[in-house]
């Protein structure tokens, strides 16, 4: 049994961590929070040059031809530093949609550009308030032209193309690839709880759309890709949870009150211990997800929901208690606590909310592939 990353993968982690600690300090995240840019172009270019954007993209499409395990390692590191880059949209989603359902031409056109960072892709499903479900999707494609509104779309303000779930002429849900530079596309940047990751509203008025995958198969393909993306996203959340815990621990060691470090008070110590418990459970569940992701196990849907629910819970828990441990200082703009708090709550909603994944986990377990989780 080896429920762990290999030595090579751990070397990759060290390598990516060094790169990010140099190029993506908290000041870089703040620059996106406070400035006009939507993402950190230099960090994104650097990740492309390291070959990690294309880690799980086959070499024939310009990737590094490694496995999704390497991508899990990278995701955790991006999460630790809250990297303000569109990796989840472009790599966990757009690239995975192309790999899962794209035609040879679509793959050849876009995958090399996603791998080298020249293009950014994203995925658009939600059309507004409430949990996303098939009935709520009204965007429509007629005669190869898409009409409708998608909101919010992560990185929709900077993406070059988007994979859209929409109804075909027969009313069935299908997926379409839309070039966002084409006519008939309007984008508006949205204010959000985490401005370090851009959100947009995309309005399509007879925008050219090409089918991705089989007609009528849209919901099915999206579910499969979202499961895979959920595992990668869980690693980002895990990295964030760990880092928020470390930050709280460091402050508890340094901050004095009543003549002693606050970490010596059980009220604080036990709060930190519980954060450690959450982060540890999340790590173990993420490793289970990573195994399912690369082994093609039949229980992948259960493993994905397990990793996602556990990591979402852990990141929210660690980020909110990080502020609590910091006391009033934790609620200042100057301290970085709110960056984790923002990111934890934004990631909890992307790819579907926590309650949606909780429901899916139990639905999938009752459907019979519960063996491993019981």
């Amino acid at each position, binding site marked *: 049994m080896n429920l762990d990353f290999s030595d090579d993968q751990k070397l990759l982690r060290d390598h990516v961590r060094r790169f990010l600690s140099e190029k993506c300090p908290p000041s870089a995240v703040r620059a996106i929070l406070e400035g006009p840019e939507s993402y950190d172009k230099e960090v994104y270019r650097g990740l492309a040059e390291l070959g990690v954007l294309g880690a799980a993209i086959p070499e024939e499409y310009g990737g590094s031809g490694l496995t999704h395990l390497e991508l899990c390692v990278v995701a955790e590191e991006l999460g630790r530093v809250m990297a303000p880059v569109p990796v989840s949209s472009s790599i966990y989603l757009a690239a995975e949609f192309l790999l899962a359902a794209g035609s040879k031409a679509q793959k050849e056109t876009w995958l090399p550009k996603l791998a080298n960072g020249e293009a950014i892709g994203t995925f658009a499903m939600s059309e507004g308030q409430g949990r996303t479900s098939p009935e709520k999707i009204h965007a429509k494609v007629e005669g190869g032209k898409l009409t409708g509104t998608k909101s919010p779309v992560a990185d929709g303000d900077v993406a070059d193309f988007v994979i859209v779930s929409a109804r075909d002429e027969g009313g069935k849900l299908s997926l379409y690839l839309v070039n966002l530079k084409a006519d008939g596309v309007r984008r508006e940047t949205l204010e959000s709880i985490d401005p370090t990751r851009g959100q947009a509203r995309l309005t399509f008025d007879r925008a050219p759309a090409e089918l991705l995958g089989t007609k009528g198969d849209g919901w099915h393909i999206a579910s499969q890709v979202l499961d895979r993306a959920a595992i990668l996203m869980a690693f980002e959340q895990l990295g964030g949870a760990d880092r928020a815990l470390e930050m709280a621990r460091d402050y508890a060691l340094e901050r004095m009150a009543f003549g002693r470090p606050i970490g010596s008070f059980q009220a604080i110590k036990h709060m930190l211990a519980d954060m*450690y*418990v959450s982060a540890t459970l999340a790590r173990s569940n993420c490793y289970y997800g990573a195994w399912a992701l690369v082994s093609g196990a039949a229980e992948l849907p259960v493993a994905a929901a397990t990793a996602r629910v556990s990591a979402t819970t852990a990141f929210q828990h660690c980020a909110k208690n990080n502020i609590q441990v910091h006391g009033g200082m934790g609620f200042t703009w100057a301290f970085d606590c709110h960056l984790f708090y923002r990111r934890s709550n934004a990631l909890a909603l992307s790819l579907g909310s926590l309650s949606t994944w909780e429901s899916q986990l139990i639905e999938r377990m009752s459907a019979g592939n519960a063996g491993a989780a019981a």
Partner: protein
Amino acid sequence: MDFEDTAEEAAFRSEVRAWIKANAPTHLEAELKRANFGSNGVVSEDPIAAGKAWQKKKAEAGWACLHWPKEYGGAARTPIERVIWGQEEGPYAALTGVFTIGHGMCGPTVMAWASEEHKRKLLPPLASGEHIWCQLFSEPASGSDLAGLRTRAVKADDGSGDWIVNGQKIWTSGAQHSDWGLLITRTNPDVPKHKGLTMFFLSMTSPGVEIRPIKQANGASGFNEVYFTDVRIPDSQRLGEVGQGWEVSLTTLMNERLSIGSGMSTGFPELFRFCMEAEIEGRPAVEDAAVRSKLAQIAVKQSGLKYTGMRAISALSKGETPGPENSIGKLVAGAAMQDLAIFALDLQGEAGVVWDDESPQQGRFQAMLMRSPATRIEGGSDEILRNIIGERVLGLPGDIRVDKEVAFRDIPTSGRAKPK
């Protein structure tokens, strides 16, 4: 990332599996699978005798105390082989639960501190299941603060060098079945509490030892009180130096927390099955959104514990020492089980108040409800476990101890006592 055995592990596993298949008391399997809190589930014959018989059989074939050296009755196997044996033993492991404290805690303490002569005398019959051991540590007035214990050992005034023990221990599992006990006492009340302790082992049939079962809050009696009235212990049965008892006890307690990969159950599989069968307004409970949310949160705890155990096994398989993550097991499982029991009763509606042992569903969660408070206390309370995680894993400073430099006899014993 895989769950596969190495070639050597697979060979070992198949050897173990074949031996267990040929030798295990298969006629008890169904009863053992019903094992619950404190009992091994055997009702058709004497459960202790059945446990001793299984342990003896294992010992004769070289499968007892796999990690112990051979000269003390063990098999000198690697940690990963011990884990594999445990996985293959499955329900039959419950049979030998009465030896858990002896094999897991008392034995390692004897091994670390006793004379060679005592080790060769005491350990082989412990390994082979001939002798049962208990641990006499906790007292009514010292639980989490173990070093505050009051049971006194004083030198006999007859020049024999023997010690005379008076006092009381509590929460002693299996005392009524035990041949030997590991006993921590206070030998010097004039020095700070950690410095005046001394460890002994003694025969549980020594004159002056009286064992009384405790009636617990759930009505059962799995634990005992043990009273000592002028119990005489030869000085040769001392472990460590006089005054070194605290250090000796740490050997025992470190071993208590070393159980790896056991994947403590939260009771989730039972709750999940129940929610598949129970109904809310004519629909299966498992389809209800609130039920799903609650189930999912418990499911990821159960799964997280399972894979945390597997990460530890992975480390052992590579010959590495598992990390501190295993310290979360009981903390997570204990609280989850209590939470889960309350939730299951809620789903049963007003009928949840009925505790019917004849109905498997109507009794199980009620039993869990009434037993789970103990899980959060025994073997290190939730609060002690959080201190351990906070201090040893996260590196936070210890609490300020107001009694640290005070002679034991000057430490206040009542919160209502007037300050001097």
